[in-house]
């Protein structure tokens, strides 16, 4: 059945992999693209990156971090249940060069979003090194998959419980410097992407960031996902989500993403409140 969940695994606390039947998306998607889902018929539309696919099972996989109401509704779905809506593949695929020295940086659930891009780099004949950040050892995800599919992986943890003690950008600076790489890709929390862009500004490296603004339709219709890149305003859902990291206005992105914080808390409380009295279908 289309949109049905056929595998569900918890990779780390509050981080869940969902494999979903989606034959058309499986046939067409490319690294860097995403889907818009509504987990239930009364949910918001949220974007999720396509992490992997299986032609045999005609499926795609996403890794979801439960941060608010809709992501919680998403990971609450069990095998055999189906997303109410699943649209994609959306956005432009990642830019994949050939024969370059490439560094990949990811933090948190961004590690999952990075995996297909890192694999595509390697498959196109680039030399790839992957640097990942996690809160602590138990939050590390997809290490084996990255090593097998992309290249050597180095970890940084905030508490030092595994690998480098500190954040992933600090790790990058200890490992490399100007001229070490031709290209790079960064994906993760906004402060981390901003730090990566700042750190590499004069490294003579083309750095792409995969941005995560708030989206509604994901089809270029609302303009809610607009981001400033250099002198121009872009719609991340159709022009991106990947942009030149050195030209992105990350401060603006952070402000825009925080614009609904009070509402998000209310939505969550409302959802939880309802669950006490009502039988959740």
């Amino acid at each position, binding site marked *: 059945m289309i949109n049905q969940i056929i595998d569900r695994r918890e990779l780390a606390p509050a981080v869940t992999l969902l494999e979903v039947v989606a034959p058309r998306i499986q046939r067409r998607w490319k690294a860097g693209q995403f889907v818009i889902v509504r987990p239930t018929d009364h949910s*918001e539309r949220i974007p999720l990156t396509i992490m992997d696919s299986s032609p045999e099972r005609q499926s795609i996989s996403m890794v979801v971090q439960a941060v608010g109401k809709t992501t919680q509704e998403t990971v609450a779905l069990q095998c055999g249940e189906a997303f109410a*809506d699943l*649209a994609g593949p*959306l956005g432009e695929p990642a830019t994949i060069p050939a024969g370059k020295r490439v560094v990949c940086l990811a933090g948190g659930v961004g590690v999952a979003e990075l995996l297909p891009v890192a694999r595509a780099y390697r498959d196109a004949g680039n030399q790839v090194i992957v640097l990942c950040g996690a809160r602590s050892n138990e939050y590390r995800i997809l290490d084996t998959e990255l090593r097998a599919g992309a290249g050597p992986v180095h970890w940084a943890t905030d508490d030092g419980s595994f690998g480098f003690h500190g954040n992933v950008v600090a790790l990058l600076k200890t490992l490399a410097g100007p001229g070490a790489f031709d290209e790079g890709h960064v994906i993760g929390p906004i402060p981390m992407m901003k730090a990566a862009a700042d750190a590499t500004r004069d490294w003579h490296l083309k750095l792409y960031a995969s941005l995560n603004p708030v989206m509604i339709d994901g089809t270029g219709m*609302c303009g809610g996902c607009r*981001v400033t890149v250099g002198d121009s305003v872009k719609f991340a859902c159709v022009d991106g989500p990947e942009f030149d990291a050195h030209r992105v206005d990350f401060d603006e992105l952070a402000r825009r993403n925080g614009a609904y914080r009070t509402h998000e808390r209310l939505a969550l409380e409302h959802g939880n409140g309802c669950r006490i009295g009502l039988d959740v279908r």
Partner: protein
Amino acid sequence: MKPSPPRPKPDPKAPRQPLPLLDPALRHTPAEVALGFTGEQAKIEALRCLQCQKPTCIDACPLNIDIKRFILRMVDGDYAGAHEVISEQSPFPGVCGRVCQHELFCEEACIVGRRWDPVAIGALERFAADHARLRMQELVKGEPRKPTGPKVALVGSGPASLIAAYDLVRLNYRVTIFEALHRLGGVLAYGIPNFRLPREILHEEIARLQNLGVEFVTSFIVGKSATIEELFEEGYEAVFLGTGAGLPYLMEIPGENLAGVYTANEFLTRLNLMEAYRFPERPTPVHVGKRTVVVGGGNSAMDAARWARRLGSETTILYRRGRAELKARIEEIKHAEEEGVRFEFLAAPVALYGDPHGFVTAMECIRMELGEPDESGRRSPAPIPGSEYRIPAETVVAAIGQAPNPTLQRVTPQLHTRRGKIVIDEAGRTSMNLVFAGGDVVRGGSTVILAMKDGRAAAAAIHRALSPNGGNHDQPDH
């Protein structure tokens, strides 16, 4: 046939019946504003029609609804019959009776209008539709029909595709409508607010198509989920592109990306499609502060401003031309005024200012003056240097127009476009074989009824192309 009672004589001199409206003091919910005629009013208004020898109204209706005949049924009190007459041409009287610009089409051509006010055709059409709702259950009962003719794909579920689907499915084509969003109706669903077009009306009239055998596929973006070529490979023999003009223009002024600054599309989508007015019962929020400024002078501007008023915000529409140049329908402007929307003419935004958290707090405006008429006949506004002033605003909505949604065009370079609009010939054909287009994607922003006109023309062209002998495919039983 049962004998009908003697018919009263037409009375065009009777005053045109005013549409009863919801008291402005009660307009703080999404409830519909125009309440529709009472039975008594419908009778009086129907009798105003002269039953002309040469009914000019019919030619003026882009759907050629047999207005004269449906009104005659109403004179006889046969409202179901009136609905059936309309249905010969259009299954959407509930939609058109509300949002069609009848003042520019059927009513403009009505003979009665030469001496008195024209017959209120739109309101009568709506009355017939509202009456039919009572028996909608009956209209859509039973299993959907199963057409057996060639497969046709219609892209987008706006009015252009919807009417094309109606025409094609009745010719027994197997019609599939592919829609990018999770709900059907295009702008009718995400743009036009509930208080002008209640969602149930839209859903019910679309459900009729479903019952006739039209298949709907939502969350399917042609160009992304599948290309046009792939649709042909999957057995579709013709494709119609009714993808609309959904790409919003930005104001391109400093501060536009502050929180609280929306395009009309985003603002209206949050409210209409995602029902943000019910937040937190519905999960999508919207920021509506103490004061809202809506920039623009068209339908979207009125709709956004009227929503903002309903959410309790002091609302101003800022328009760079004068009142006479407003593009919205007179009715919408009147309703907005009744609801307390303030208009500020001959002024344009130049910058937005925000607080340290990135929320908009004020708009800097500049006064404009109208210059000489340009080649289009419209007087173009020019800023008056040094006339800048500031107004407070916690919510700003840019309702300054839309361009065709480019998603499909981007991945289909063989499709000829001009300034983003898909180019078609007089038969609705694009540069691709057996691919047709119509509605806003061809015209840029236009209207529901013109989109329907295009959809109907394209359906006819598709029928000619797929059935060169003009032959009907076997009609299904019904």
